[in-house]
């Protein structure tokens, strides 16, 4: 943990060296999801609601998934850029150090400019929380935090999984974008509106539904029956990261240096 913190401070200082570029990038990172959110707002302005969901309810959904995604992307950025480590043969250096590989790859990159996206997500989240007609209590607040925390774990898990593929393919796999960017786009609307195969896939294989849709039902009082299951659904989603880490370790054992 101390080591990770040290990695972060070094990276933060190095990125601040290019100040204008840093701020421009942060602003840009803010604008991109903002445009998406604006699009959603205009759609609701025109249509009023989507299958019984009001704008603020969907905005809450949007805010949660974007905060989770940006945190996940910040943290696991090292895995996202992992193919360059393998191609350059730099992964060898990591292997010979007496620290865990996961930690070192995590610390190899940290994109502070993604804070722009995070800020945007937090804005939407606060806006939604203050406008939505829900009586907040401790249980609901805890659920909200759980949703974000476990969402971060899922996104990190996907990044790790995609990086692990590099051990076999060397090249980075663009297909993983379907599950990170695509998953994010998909999960910003409640899962209810999609076709069955999408619902099943994103609940049981990649459990976005567990961190987003199911607990949201509890927060919005749309559940019937026991609510504890809905509340704890995020934890079930978080289990997703365990097999990802396991596959990572298998991959590390398979690693053959490209060297140069």
């Amino acid at each position: 943990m101390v080591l990770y913190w040290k990695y972060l401070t070094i990276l933060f200082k190095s990125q601040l060296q290019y100040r204008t570029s840093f701020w421009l990038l942060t602003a840009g990172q803010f604008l991109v999801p903002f445009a998406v959110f604006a699009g959603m707002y205009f759609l609701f302005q025109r249509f009023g609601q989507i299958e019984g969901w009001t704008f603020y309810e969907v905005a809450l959904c949007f805010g949660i998934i974007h905060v989770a995604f940006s945190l996940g992307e910040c943290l696991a950025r090292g895995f996202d850029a992992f193919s360059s480590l393998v191609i350059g043969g730099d992964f060898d250096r990591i292997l010979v150090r007496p620290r865990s590989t996961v930690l070192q790859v995590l610390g190899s990159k940290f994109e502070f400019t993604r804070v722009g996206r995070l800020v945007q997500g937090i804005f939407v989240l606060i806006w939604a929380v203050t406008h939505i007609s829900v009586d907040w209590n401790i249980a609901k607040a805890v659920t909200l935090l759980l949703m974000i925390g476990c969402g971060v774990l899922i996104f990190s898990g996907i990044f790790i999984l995609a990086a692990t593929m590099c051990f076999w393919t060397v090249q980075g796999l663009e297909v993983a974008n379907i599950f990170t960017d695509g998953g994010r786009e998909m999960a910003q609307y409640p899962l209810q509106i999609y076709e069955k195969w999408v619902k099943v896939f994103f609940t049981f294989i990649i459990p976005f539904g567990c961190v987003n849709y199911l607990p949201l039902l509890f927060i919005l009082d749309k559940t019937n029956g026991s609510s504890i299951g809905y509340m704890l659904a995020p934890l079930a989603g978080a289990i997703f990261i365990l097999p990802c880490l396991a596959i990572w370790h298998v991959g590390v054992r398979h690693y053959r240096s490209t060297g140069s």
Partner: protein
Amino acid sequence: MRAYISVGKLRFINGLQYRSAAFAGIATQFFWGFIIIMIYKAFFSQNDPLRMTSISLDQLVSYVWLQQAFITFIVLWFRDAEIFQLITTGNIAYELCRPCAIYEYWYVKLLATRLASALLRCFPILIAAFALPQPYRMENPPSFVSFALFAVTLCMGLLLLVSISMFIYISVFWTMSPVGSTLMIGAFGEFMAGLIIPVPLMPEWLQKIAYSLPFRWTADFPFRVYSGQIPAHDAAWGILVQLVWLVVLVTLGKMLMNKALRQVVVQGG
């Protein structure tokens, strides 16, 4: 002129090499298209949606699939890292020694890359989109005229888009770092082009802004011509507008480029 054609040809062939990248792109685009259509379908599922929009779900479906198939014709983030490097590393000096005008040279290069990439991607997506079950299936254009007009407007849109993207490259002469400015211009331009939500679904006041900017002529316009949402008569006039924008933007781009080149500082040695 011959030199530009051969540059374009080379780039085009070079672009065709990236087949696995295109394959990954196709999978992503396909998934993306599905998700977006499902969202629109849900919005349209309430009573009498046509009261609220001037565009029908079928037309939207065609719009989305065309957008996904021709994604490299219409997005601004699709860019040539090589040109950025030329400027920031100082290798621009070599480019300047070439016996051809740099604006035209880059223009052809960018055009060819986009063409090659679109050629690899569009057919699998379109074929699949035509074969899908309802309501995801893409409809044929209502008449041959609208199809022909679509083809013309799409090509004009591509020319227009490349001339817009040239401004991003030129801006790097001043900012020296491409990422920030591309992201900002890209986010704004793509929104105004109707890539986030189609222009007919925007509120009135925003539609007015979008119609007065060049971006929507690159994507929104040809896609609506295809489904006949813009009637043939208006489309023919639209081609004229596209032409005017193209002339204005290319002239402006050349002027800025000359200005940038006059004060260019060759970075590094």
